[in-house]
């Protein structure tokens, strides 16, 4: 009986995992590129990233996870010093 119930629980519960909707980086048309020299380490791009694809690291710089970034461009829009530019994919 217990094995049946544990199987049942294992079957219907979903596990948290990155990329549950697929590798969403492939949706991207424009790629955010961060200019580290202009960055003032305010963290606003991290705060407003809907996808949670930007990490705000221990030294307060930011890093984009290009596997999952959908390229919406909100980070570039909210950046107070315009350190983030949206570059068309494939141009680099």
């Amino acid at each position, binding site marked *: 009986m217990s094995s049946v119930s544990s199987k049942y629980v294992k079957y219907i*519960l*979903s*596990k*948290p*995992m*990155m*990329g*549950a*909707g*697929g*590798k*969403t980086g492939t*949706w991207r048309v424009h790629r955010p590129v961060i200019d580290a020299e202009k960055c003032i380490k*305010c*963290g*606003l791009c*991290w*705060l*407003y990233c*809907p*996808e*949670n*694809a930007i*990490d*705000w*690291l*221990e030294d*307060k710089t930011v890093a984009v*996870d290009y*596997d*999952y970034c*959908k*390229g*919406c*461009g*909100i980070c*570039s*829009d*909210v950046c107070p010093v315009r350190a983030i530019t*949206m570059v068309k994919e494939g141009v680099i």
Partner: protein
Amino acid sequence: MVTINELHKYGRTKLIMPGTAACPGCPLQLGMRYLAMALDGKFAMVIPAGCSSVIPGTAPYTAFTVPTMHVPFASSPAVASGLRRALRIRGVDGPVVVWAGDGASADIGFASLSGAAYRNEDIIYILADNEAYMNTGIQASGTTPPKAWTTTSPRGKTEGRKDVSLIMIMHNVPYVATASIAYPMDFIDKVRRAASIRGFKFIHLHAPCPPGWKFPDNYTVRVARLAVETGMWILWEYNQGKLTISPPSIPYKDKGRRKPIEEYLKLQGRFSHLTKEDIEEIKAGVDRQWDLILKLTEIYR
């Protein structure tokens, strides 16, 4: 008020996992991130049908790291009430949060929402308001603003707007507030304050939807901020008999300091058909709403 430096500890924490099935620039994910940060990831979530039940992706995986229950459209407050009572019997004292869209709250699920509020169940209800049924293809809902284009109102909505948050005050619940995804610190404060109160808590979160409102993906935060700066969306808080205007909205009590409403309307394709008379009518509506809220701050003080 919480500051961004206090949130630095969540800098690498993925409370909502990346790689979800949401559209680029989705405001609901932003709101969910702030909610998870506000409660430190320790809560249970109930989600009725809508965009938010599609966002976590395909089974057997999910993007949410909190226990989540997906329920039919009209039942979310009822399920949350039962969940809260069952958790209390088991000795678990974390908050139960209902994350519902405007269709599930204002139209289809309104009966059970009203019932849960009148029983004063100990849940937090967050209405993520993207102002139409976005998941099924942009049909008009009870909270769609007048004159807005939707697929069921191709020449602009002729009906008015249902103010769900003011209706909830009249249910005599302890806590009602409005919030916006462009002001995360204000929203996080309100969620934390709500979690510290026992009883029914209601937060109305304004969430501009890029495909539904027809603006570019990168303008989500800008449009939400303009809604507050033009006075179209008023941030206020009703806490146990006292109604106050929240800090981001305080400057806009004065009509002269509000930005012109055209700035907000011209960014959105759903308002592109408006004539001058329509805009005047919308302006009059905004002034009426401010008068009402300011009078209520005098009554509930």
